């Protein structure tokens, strides 16, 4: 993978130790990553990100637009991204649903952009001010058709900062929408956030085409599988569309082109899974029970794991930092050794189904649901560990 890395533009980097909530940290991560366009529509509990970005962008130099709705938000990001800017939006619950159609367009047009979802309890307007992890499958499958995206899940304001930078880097590397799937609890929680000096922050620069103006093909893959981009207005004539298209970006409505086009959207992520997927594991080697979680739930789960270890149950943990693509091989490996995998998450069963699938029936997989509005009681997770260890 030819990835051009450079140091962050100091203008956007608020170096120092701050006491920030997760929402503000998302905005600071975006600015540090070089994001200079934000289009969004305010929605609780994500509004603070938009507020922070709008307050900071005049001193950094860039564009903030409050769009008419979430359909327009993603459309504005697609335009800004093709105009050459790193672009972001933030939303929650109903707003995320409204974005889905244009998320598909961004995927089909291979447009780099970052969407943060500060999840709240659903369905519908649900719990505007209270937490949930109920949009994890929507992030993966929300728009129609076959495609692949990348989704990250921060567990703290510090990680909201770090992973937003990572999201931009992945988005620019693979020309794909990247989701930062946080939640109300992390979004509204204040903790210390350390922002390093700009020269210590690595940002990925988009792979620009510099060849002859009449030779540019917006969907011709480079050797690394990722096509080059140009900035709209720089004199390159090209066509892009949500329709199935060839290397020139022209619509070709047949099964052969569909196969090449859609397979490319899948392959560019799946072939690079080993480079994309990040997780943290602890004491999984000889664990009887492994607790797999992500986001805020992973912190609560550690409380339960500490108790289980005290009770003499060999318990390991896996914390997903990347939720999509899913660490399939890792889960299969764990399932071969452990007695059970326990999956707490603030929903009625989402990532749990993926763990269950990947375990290939080699071990039992236990879900610990929570329907939203609060985090788990660590004792509920402990009870599930205890039961699973029997």
């Amino acid at each position, binding site marked *: 993978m030819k990835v051009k890395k450079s140091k962050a533009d100091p203008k956007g980097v608020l170096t120092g130790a701050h*006491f920030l909530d997760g929402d503000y940290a998302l905005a600071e991560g975006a600015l540090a990553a070089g994001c200079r366009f934000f289009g969004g529509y305010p929605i609780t509990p994500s509004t603070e990100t938009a507020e922070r970005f709008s307050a900071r962008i005049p001193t950094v130099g860039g564009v903030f637009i409050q769009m008419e709705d979430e359909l327009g938000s993603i459309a504005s990001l697609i335009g800004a991204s093709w105009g050459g800017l790193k672009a972001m939006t933030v939303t929650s619950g109903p707003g995320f649903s409204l974005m889905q159609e244009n998320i598909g367009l961004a995927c089909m047009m291979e447009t780099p952009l970052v969407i943060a979802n500060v999840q709240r309890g659903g369905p519908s307007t649900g719990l505007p001010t209270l937490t949930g992890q109920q949009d994890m499958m929507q992030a993966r499958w929300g728009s129609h058709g076959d495609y692949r995206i990348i989704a990250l899940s921060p567990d703290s304001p510090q990680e909201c900062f770090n992973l937003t930078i990572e999201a931009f880097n992945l988005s620019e590397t693979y020309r794909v929408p990247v989701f930062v799937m946080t939640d109300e609890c992390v979004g*509204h*929680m*204040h*903790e*210390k956030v350390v922002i390093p000096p700009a020269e210590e922050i690595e940002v990925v620069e988009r792979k620009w085409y510099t060849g002859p103006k009449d030779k540019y093909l917006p969907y011709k893959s480079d050797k690394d599988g990722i096509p080059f981009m140009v900035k709209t207005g720089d004199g390159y004539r090209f066509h892009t569309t949500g329709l199935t298209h060839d290397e020139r970006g022209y619509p070709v409505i047949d099964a052969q082109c569909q196969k090449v086009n859609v397979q490319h959207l899948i392959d560019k992520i799946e072939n690079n899974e080993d480079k994309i997927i990040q997780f943290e594991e602890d004491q999984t080697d000889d664990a009887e029970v492994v607790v797999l979680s992500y986001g805020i739930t992973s*912190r609560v789960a*550690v*409380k339960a794991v500490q108790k289980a270890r005290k009770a003499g149950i060999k318990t390991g943990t896996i914390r997903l930092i990347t939720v999509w693509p899913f660490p399939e091989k890792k889960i299969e490996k764990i399932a071969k050794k452990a007695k059970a995998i326990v999956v707490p998450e603030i929903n009625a069963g989402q990532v749990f189904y993926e763990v269950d699938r990947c375990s290939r029936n080699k071990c039992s997989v236990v879900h610990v649901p929570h329907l939203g509005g609060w*985090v788990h009681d660590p004792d509920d997770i402990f009870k599930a560990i205890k039961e699973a260890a029997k």
Partner: protein
Amino acid sequence: MTEIRFSGFGGQGIIRCALIGGKALSIYGGKFATMNQSFGPEARGSACSSQLIVSDERVLYPYITRPEILVSMSQEAYEKYQAELKDDGILITDEDLVDPKIKRENIKHYSIPATRFAEELGNRIIANLVMMGFFTAITKITTPDTMKKALPGLVPDRFIELNKKAFDKGYEYGQKALDEGKS
């Protein structure tokens, strides 16, 4: 680990108290601190609260469960939250605004006329800083200097000196209360 709840009604600077405490302790006090606040309609005039968890290790569970310290600046907030205060916990109230009518033998209660002091200093809006000074003296959670370091960025620049004065007023009153063994 120490769990703290600040409570009162919207507009008293209850959220600001936890922000100041959290920033001071996590950035200047060498601790881990996680702060949460109430959202929704209660943040606009009715009972309002903020939570602060302070620890030597990373805070895992993000919310308080049984606070060791409850600060109440309104009767409604006091009545709503007093039951969750841990045995042997510390209750801190605004003397003029809270009637601590629910008797509990196993807690320590300290009070200060924070709002009255703030009015005497020229502006009732700094009652929360009087309270933070008092809170710092009573709980000894960190030094007064560490707390005051957190003020820039959390109160308007032109009011920093006034806020420090309010803090000092509360701190001195708290120390006197401790010296006199008033509880």
